[in-house]
């Protein structure tokens, strides 16, 4: 029986059959859709727009920092720009990016299901996201907000004259979008798997989405209630977090980071899932240590809840609790390292096809490692005291968020682009963009490690003249990075009309999503697949094919 491989199972529709894109026409058929694939496309448009908005703030800030004087933006405007950059990129791009676009599109396909468990709630999630995004845009147009994305009290509740209430309300709403997506994914993974698709046959992307969804479900409500208390304090003028009125500002920081540290794993766990898929597909191997990689996602999700106060080492928490949180923070490195070692072991002695998704993932593995190791520097209390609130911290989390999460998002977008659109992207241009992004990214953020170590504080529009050379390098890198991100925007749109037809499985990859047509039909599979093979069963496939069809 075990001789049945994925190669024998095909659900490809005849040429000309209607797919999810051509199934219905008109704006309403998209705005009222309950199909997970169409909702993924809605998210793709929305988060791309918000990514450009967040990028705009970053570009203006980098131009400001070209010279030591604060000459382009006033300090107040600069405060608003870094605040809005953070809020837009974290709440409106990174957190929904891989789950809401790729996860939405792929999860039912990978599970052999017709849709997510709750299609209407899935659409509701997108509308909540859009309501929050429109509120955010309105606030940006009417004056912005200057608290930093962390909304620290009592500045945010008592002193700031900007739109704190509106922005926190928008963050509250977009939080429910995130919760409902996580809830939908968890139920889908538990209850909608195809017959035979046991837990340890699941693609590692699904394991990653599972771990991510747990964090979304359990961490986000704490942010929601914290923001409710913040809004209540601001409107009613009572002192929940204001020390002058008997409140405790540290309590706000504890509750904020109880969500916002795990939120880092909402952003990076899906990226790790993409990495596993791409590494397997472009090495034609089973992922080394599948079970370890699967369990390490859950371990990261669990440990991520126990380390929040490492954001507060200099905020006035006791030395003993700082030591405990420092100690626990080191533990997160263990499952993260397990993943990096297992991907590396998979690459070892493999014939690696250096297509665009793989280039991004190679970049991801290296940059994530640098970001992770500098995270250990920051988990050490002594070193953290030295570099707190400097550019070292900025560089560290951009290595994780941009070098890690965004690189993997780009990898996933290219890897599944043929499945989503039915068209191939232009390989040469895509490789060029990948290399530009890698080079531009490092040129932007590596100098910031040095700047921070030398003592340049974050969140100022002016700086001491001796920091200029490194800042010019960083701004130059940001320009390269901007070109790198603009290229895919152009060639991916171009490919919709002029790209080569992809066919159901252009990479010769295994996984149920490649067993149906590209783009998939509305119902995904015209009959429910029965799974008798393990994930990444490339050895069996290669054997069956006589190794004739390499990429």
């Amino acid at each position, binding site marked *: 029986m075990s001789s049945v491989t994925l190669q024998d199972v*095909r*659900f490809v529709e005849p040429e000309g059959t209607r797919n999810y894109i051509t199934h219905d026409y008109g704006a309403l058929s998209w705005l009222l859709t309950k199909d997970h694939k169409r909702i993924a496309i809605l998210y793709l448009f929305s988060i791309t727009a918000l990514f450009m908005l967040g990028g705009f703030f970053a570009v203006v800030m980098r131009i400001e920092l070209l010279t030591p004087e604060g000459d382009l933006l006033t300090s107040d405007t600069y405060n608003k720009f870094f605040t809005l950059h953070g809020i837009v990129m974290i709440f409106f791009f990174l957190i929904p990016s891989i789950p809401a676009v790729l996860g939405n599109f792929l999860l039912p396909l990978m599970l052999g299901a017709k849709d997510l468990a709750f299609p209407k709630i899935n659409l509701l999630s997108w509308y909540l996201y859009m309501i929050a995004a429109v509120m955010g845009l309105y606030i940006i147009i009417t004056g912005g907000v200057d608290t930093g994305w962390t909304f620290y009290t009592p500045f945010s509740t008592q002193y700031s004259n900007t739109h704190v209430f509106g922005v926190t309300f928008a963050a509250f709403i977009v939080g429910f979008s995130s919760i409902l997506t996580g809830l939908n994914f968890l139920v889908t993974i538990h*209850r909608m798997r195809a017959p035979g698709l046991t837990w340890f046959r699941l693609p590692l992307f699904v394991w990653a989405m599972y771990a991510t969804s747990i964090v979304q479900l*359990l961490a986000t409500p704490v942010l*929601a209630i914290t923001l409710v208390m913040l809004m209540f304090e601001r409107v009613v003028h*009572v002192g929940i977090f204001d020390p002058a009125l*008997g409140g405790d500002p540290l309590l706000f920081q504890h*509750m904020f980071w109880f969500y916002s540290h795990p939120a880092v794993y909402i952003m990076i766990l899906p990226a790790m899932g993409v990495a596993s898929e791409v590494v397997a597909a472009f090495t034609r191997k089973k992922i080394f240590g599948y079970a370890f990689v699967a369990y390490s996602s859950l371990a990261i999700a669990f440990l991520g809840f126990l380390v929040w106060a490492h954001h507060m080492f200099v905020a006035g928490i006791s030395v003993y609790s700082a030591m405990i949180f420092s100690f626990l923070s080191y533990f997160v490195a263990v499952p993260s390292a397990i993943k990096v070692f297992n991907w590396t072991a998979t690459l070892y002695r493999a014939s690696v096809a250096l297509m665009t998704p793989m280039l991004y993932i190679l970049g991801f593995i290296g940059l994530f490692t640098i970001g992770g190791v500098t995270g250990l520097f920051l988990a050490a209390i002594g070193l953290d005291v030295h570099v707190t609130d400097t550019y070292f911290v900025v560089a560290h989390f951009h290595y994780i968020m941009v070098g890690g999460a965004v690189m993997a998002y780009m990898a996933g977008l290219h890897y599944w682009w043929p499945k989503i659109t039915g068209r191939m992207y232009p390989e040469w241009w895509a490789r060029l963009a990948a290399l530009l992004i890698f080079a531009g990214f490092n040129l932007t953020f590596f100098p910031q490690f040095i700047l921070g170590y030398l003592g340049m504080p974050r969140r100022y529009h002016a700086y001491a003249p001796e920091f200029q050379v490194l800042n010019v390098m960083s701004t130059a890198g940001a320009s390269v990075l901007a070109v790198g991100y603009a290229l895919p925007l152009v060639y991916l749109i171009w490919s919709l009309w002029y790209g080569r037809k992809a066919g159901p499985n252009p990479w010769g990859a295994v996984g149920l999503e490649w067993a149906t047509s590209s783009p998939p039909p509305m119902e995904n599979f015209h009959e*429910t697949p029965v799974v008798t093979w393990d994930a990444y069963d490339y050895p069996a496939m290669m054997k069956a094919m006589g190794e004739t069809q390499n990429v």
Partner: protein
Amino acid sequence: MSDIPLDDAVVEHHEHHPFLQHHFEDLGQQHEASTLGMWMFLSTEILFFGGVLCAYWVYRILYPEAWALGAEQQNKLYGGLNTIVLIISSLTMALAVRNAQLGKRKGTVAMLFATLVFGSTFMAVKGIEYWQHYHEGLFPGVHFTWNEVPALAPKVQLFMVFYWGMTGLHALHMVIGAGLLIWMMTRAWRGHFGPEYYGPVEIMGLYWHFVDIVWIFLFPFLYLIHGVHHV
């Protein structure tokens, strides 16, 4: 095997139960998915209320005298009455689920209606309490004029922030629950439920019981604490 036209698969669905959604294999899968979804939603709710309860406990430990004084301002008779009313409403809710499972249409509607009556009683009593607190100057902010123990007044105000905040969130959940009850009553009246399909009533019941349990925590935390706690 691969070229079966899509239409054949569609035809099959017409024999299915009218409330079976197209993306589920059968009613069992649909029921299990919906139930699990509600449990997960409730776990989100636990963390949501857990956050504000955590803040409540931090300040209770910091300001035990003010917390005891704050609880003294509450009407234990109203609070106790409401606790009993809610526990009875949980019983009628459970009976509504049982009636739905047995396919007893009128029994289901009657029990849902009874639950709605008890829930509304709770809200009415809560409203009287709110009204009285407002006139006693116990609403936080500029309306806070309570000053019996001046040294502790700001901390008592903080207690009242948690009182209004937590009971307010609970009341909001009750209002949503009342809306769901009315929806379920109309569906039950139309005879949607029976031994094969009673999931919505059961899931609504889970929600209702959860909201009750929240009150079971709020009542002692806000009404019954007393004395000075040294922690």
